[in-house]
């Protein structure tokens, strides 16, 4: 099962006549950190919305042999597909630990739901460690900062034991070091899972992407390795822009740090 891939074929999403996603196909496999990039409004979030059942789409999105489209949200999650949101959304009134416990509860029987929680699951402890929230188990999630909430969301996906992680701008608002930490975390996670990241931070993409899909106006503009995509003149025109120059500067910084 671990080698089941996420295969999206000819995905289309329309909003009363407006085509937000117009026939997108791509696939993502365990072991890679797949990036989905593209201009604002290209349809990246909408793709994730469609795959996770939040909006209706046509075409196909399969996880292994299972078709995801057309199922209700919670059923898709139960198949192992988890996501984060562009604006972090956690349960403000519950503590970090409770947030995680609920996320972990997915695989519990409904009878056990009626029992009280005793102790902390291994998986939760691990997730706390991995995401640097180990010091905050009793903090109400509502008062975490922007970045901490994003980590909490990732931690929730971890305890949920999602096979597919769809992350919508997971490092937005994080500082450089935090981005690095998050990227490394994603690489570790990706060893056994499918990780799909939407990001605008090209620096981040270059460092952690194994393969990249570029969307533009609801269609796939380009697909390939970081280098291939960056070299694509169309991508440069609609997305990267004159940042070609900035790119070299950023690359320099990366190299400098890796020394």
């Amino acid at each position, binding site marked *: 099962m671990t080698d089941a891939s996420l295969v999206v074929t000819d995905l289309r999403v329309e909003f009363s006549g407006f085509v937000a996603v117009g026939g997108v196909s791509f696939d993502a496999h365990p072991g890679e950190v797949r990036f989905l990039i593209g201009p604002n409004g290209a349809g990246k979030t909408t793709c994730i919305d469609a795959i996770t059942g939040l909006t209706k789409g046509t075409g196909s999105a399969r996880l292994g042999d299972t078709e995801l489209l057309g199922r209700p949200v919670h059923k898709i999650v139960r198949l192992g597909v988890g996501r984060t949101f562009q604006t972090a959304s956690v349960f403000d*009134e519950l503590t970090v630990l409770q947030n995680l416990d609920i996320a972990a509860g*997915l695989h519990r029987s409904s009878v056990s739901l009626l029992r009280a929680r005793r102790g902390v699951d291994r998986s939760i402890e691990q997730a706390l460690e991995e995401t640097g929230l180990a010091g905050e188990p009793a903090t109400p999630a509502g008062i975490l900062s922007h970045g901490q909430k994003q980590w909490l969301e990732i931690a929730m996906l971890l305890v949920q034991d999602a096979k597919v992680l769809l992350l919508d701008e997971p490092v937005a608002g994080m500082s450089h070091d935090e981005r690095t930490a998050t990227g490394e975390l994603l690489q570790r996670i990706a060893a056994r899972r499918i990780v799909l990241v939407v990001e605008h931070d090209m620096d981040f993409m270059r460092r952690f992407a194994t393969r990249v899909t570029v969307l533009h106006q609801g269609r796939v503009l380009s697909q390939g390795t970081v280098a291939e995509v960056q070299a694509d003149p169309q991508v440069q025109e609609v997305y990267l822009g004159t940042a070609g120059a900035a790119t070299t500067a950023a690359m320099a910084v990366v190299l400098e740090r890796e020394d």
Partner: protein
Amino acid sequence: MTKKPWISLGGIGVFAVLLLAVAPLVLTDHWLNNLGKYCCWAIAAVGIGLAWGRGGMLVMGQGVFFALGAYAMAMHLTLETAGDRVPGFMVLYDPLAPLPMFWEPFRSAGFTLAAIVGLPVVVAGALGYALFKRRVKGAYFAILTQALAVALAVLISSTIRETGGDTGLSDFKYFFGFVLNDPANRLMVYLIAAALLIVCLLAVWQFYRSRFGELLVATRDAEERVRFLGYDPANVKLVAFVVSALMASIGGAMFVPIVGIITPAEIGAAASILMIAGVALGGRASLFGPALGAIAVGWGQSSLGSTWPDGWPYILGLLFIVVILFLPNGLSSLPARFAAARRKPDVPPTPVIAAAELEEVRS
């Protein structure tokens, strides 16, 4: 964190001793009977606490379920009193017509008890399923349930021969074979109501400390987000809603032998809101708050309503305003606030309850 549930359990124990042992010793028959009535409201209030306080569903129409239990019980007691005859009030409007069909099964005590439990489960189950699957929530849900209570009250008022109408059902002589006028039996009825209240408290105590309790709060605060954790929030809410309906029904059922009369006014808009008032006063999300609040409001109505009838509406009105305005978590949050004020100023503030509500009203 983990110790607190056991303190609460101790609290329930103290409460049980007060209700079951102390009260019958110190209170006059009249006040014991009144306390029994407040217990019935408290049972319903405990359910409201679960649905509203923890689940975020402002159930403004608990009168509907209160009515199911109450009228099931009242029909049985009416038939028990009437014996083989058609109940007296029916004769008044259409002297020669037979007993309406839907009354017949209520001759059976077993059926009646099953109905008190089963009717609210079925009705709340169907209603909740329909509403929650369609994602009706927030103010819509509140107004809709309130409208249901009004509709049911008007329906009962307008079917005078079948249900006793606005006048209601009253004048019961027996309670499952026991003569209601006998003081010993009245004490027994009181004890049953008080015991049921304790049982309901124990039930929500377990709910609150369970994972389900946390899930319910999560659903209250971010329903859509819960979906993305693989739960269907509709089911989570449904469980809480059905349980709260069941409690309302049980409260209603016990109301009938204790008070001796049930009318549509006890289930309509005003009555349903008064049930909420107790819960808000006591503290919607706390364990004891709803029950104590309901008892306090009931007592206020009996005593202040007597000594100062013109003033009682003002007091009740002010109570609503002051408590909601200054103590959104009810009187039961006072000790915590007090404690927090004395502790060093680094504890996080009590989070505001209704962040999610805002979205609901807006969306």
